[in-house]
């Protein structure tokens, strides 16, 4: 029986010719990732294993991005513990403030993941690297500790859902709208324990940044991973960013999928997820009158250069609505610099937005954009759970950078085509 792309990657890393759905396997890891929330817990567990070194100093990446620049004494002390661990273990891929970025934008940019890899990360959005044709998935701190010690992780071989993308998206429809549409279609547990494999000729209309956004939110449908086939665009990205060898895996013709969905991208509209769950979607023409207090443009989902270009195109020459706070977070230092050179940051600042250093802060209600009771935000982030961005009685609406930027100008959720 044929294997899906994910199953092929997992089989190869388990040293097996074939694997079957439900089989428990142990796979070799090409990347083990942690951040400043999950790594301190992993370090404690790592020491309990009884080894005194990590399995491979080059294959571990630690990115302090959640509560950094540190928001208080406790988070500063956690980051200090991480630095000491990194020094002791001689971990090569540690990214300090100044070289740092939001982990899931930074790791591909630094070339630390390439097609055919298996990567685990103690952050649920580690599924992002599926955009590059890698198997990557989120795990917790204990799995991170075991991965750092042994270079291995156990998995149950997942079944798969196939999403055949057709046609070309209309203007102002991007990866975020497509993935919100998919999550709305299958529900927040629609892909539970499964792979989401995106295929079809429509993919050629998606930029790498669109694909990163879509793979990033596979977890929001419960997916174990989201993955794209490797095409010329993927290989071009890899050539620019990495010197590591890679392997291209393709699904077998007779691979088995539990469900197949066909999506005509040309029929999709800008899409918004209403509180308090990402599958509570409405298309922009169904949104109604939703006034907002804060706009957040950034995060591991939508803080890449294409996202900032899209937002700047909408905001160019306009002013943020009175009473609305707009916070823009480029996802890495490189993206920040590129946005500066392209004049995007000037556009944002002149419009009345603030531009911040890369951080996950506002996305999880950590710092730099926390909401008060009763406030509403529209954000390009990935989750809108109760209390996600601050007060349990605040609200988060998820949308693309274009919709978020248009909403910044009018003060209510707005279709970009109505103001550009």
């Amino acid at each position, binding site marked *: 029986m044929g294997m899906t792309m994910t199953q092929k990657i997992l089989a190869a890393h388990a040293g097996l010719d074939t694997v079957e759905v439900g089989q428990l396997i142990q796979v070799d890891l090409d990347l083990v990732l942690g951040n400043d929330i999950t790594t301190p817990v992993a370090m404690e567990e790592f020491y*309990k294993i*009884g080894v005194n070194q990590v399995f491979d100093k080059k294959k571990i990446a630690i990115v302090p991005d959640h509560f950094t620049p540190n928001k208080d004494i406790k988070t500063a002390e*956690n980051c200090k513990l991480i630095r000491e661990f990194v020094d002791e273990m001689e971990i090569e891929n540690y990214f300090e403030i100044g070289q740092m970025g939001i982990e899931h934008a930074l790791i591909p940019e630094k070339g630390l993941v390439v097609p055919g890899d298996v990567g685990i990360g103690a952050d649920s959005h580690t599924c992002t690297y599926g955009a590059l044709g890698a198997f990557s998935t989120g795990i917790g701190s204990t799995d991170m500790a075991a991965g750092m010690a042994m270079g291995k992780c156990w998995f149950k071989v997942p079944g798969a859902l196939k999403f055949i993308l057709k046609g070309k998206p209309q203007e102002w429809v991007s990866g975020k709208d497509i993935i919100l549409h998919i999550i709305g279609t299958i529900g*927040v547990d629609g892909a539970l324990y499964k792979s989401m494999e995106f295929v079809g000729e429509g993919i050629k209309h998606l930029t790498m940044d669109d694909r990163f956004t879509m793979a990033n939110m596979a977890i929001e449908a419960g997916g174990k991973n989201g993955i794209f086939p490797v095409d010329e665009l993927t290989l071009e990205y890899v050539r620019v960013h990495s010197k590591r060898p890679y392997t291209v895996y393709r699904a077998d013709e007779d691979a088995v999928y539990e469900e197949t969905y066909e999506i005509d991208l040309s029929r999709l509209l800008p899409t918004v997820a209403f509180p308090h769950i990402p599958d509570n979607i409405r298309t922009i023409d169904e949104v109604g009158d939703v006034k907002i207090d804060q706009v957040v443009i950034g995060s591991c989902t939508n803080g890449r250069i294409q996202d900032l270009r899209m937002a700047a195109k909408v905001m160019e020459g306009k002013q943020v609505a009175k009473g609305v706070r707009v916070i823009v977070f480029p996802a890495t230092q490189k993206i920040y610099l590129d946005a500066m050179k392209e004049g995007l940051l000037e556009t944002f600042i002149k419009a009345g937005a603030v531009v911040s250093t890369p951080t996950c802060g506002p996305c999880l209600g*950590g710092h730099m954009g926390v909401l008060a009771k009763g406030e509403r935000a529209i954000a390009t982030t990935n989750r809108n*759970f109760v209390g996600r961005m601050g007060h349990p009685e605040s609200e988060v609406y998820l949308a693309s950078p274009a919709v978020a930027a248009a909403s910044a100008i009018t003060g209510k959720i707005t279709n970009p085509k109505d103001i550009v």
Partner: protein
Amino acid sequence: MMKTNGRVFKYGSNVDTDVIIPARYLSTFDPGELAKHCMEDLDSTFSSQVKSGDIIVGEKNFGCGSSREHAPLAIKASGISCVIASSFARIFYRNAINIGLPILECPEAVEKIENGDVIEINFKKGIIHNMTKTEFYEAQPFPEFIQKIMESDGLIKYIAKGLAQQKSGGE
């Protein structure tokens, strides 16, 4: 742990890790501190009412969201002896097993158990006894490999044991 019994705290579907332990408390990873704020944004009375041995019952997709292990750690440190749900989000499922927090998938139990029921769980047999209603429900047993991790009280002790055996020339 072979058996446990306690009172049920029942919640709905998609109980996410942000409500289990909100991000504003993630600057610490001390289990006792995390327990003080467990379930706070969903049920502000939970931490003051929960007693050792009590059980959480959720519906679909329990533990969805973040990979933060602080979530199962907070639940375990609250004294909860088991979480029963009709399905678990996969990272939460792994994390719970890895830290030795017992969890059971049992849609029938979820359907029939009500908030406040007292139940007894026999982990070896996978039998849930609803003492309030005098009903029995059968849960999915863990695969053998996961049972071994649970018996070792989590993944780290399981690995450490394996390494020690290798060093001593064992299996």
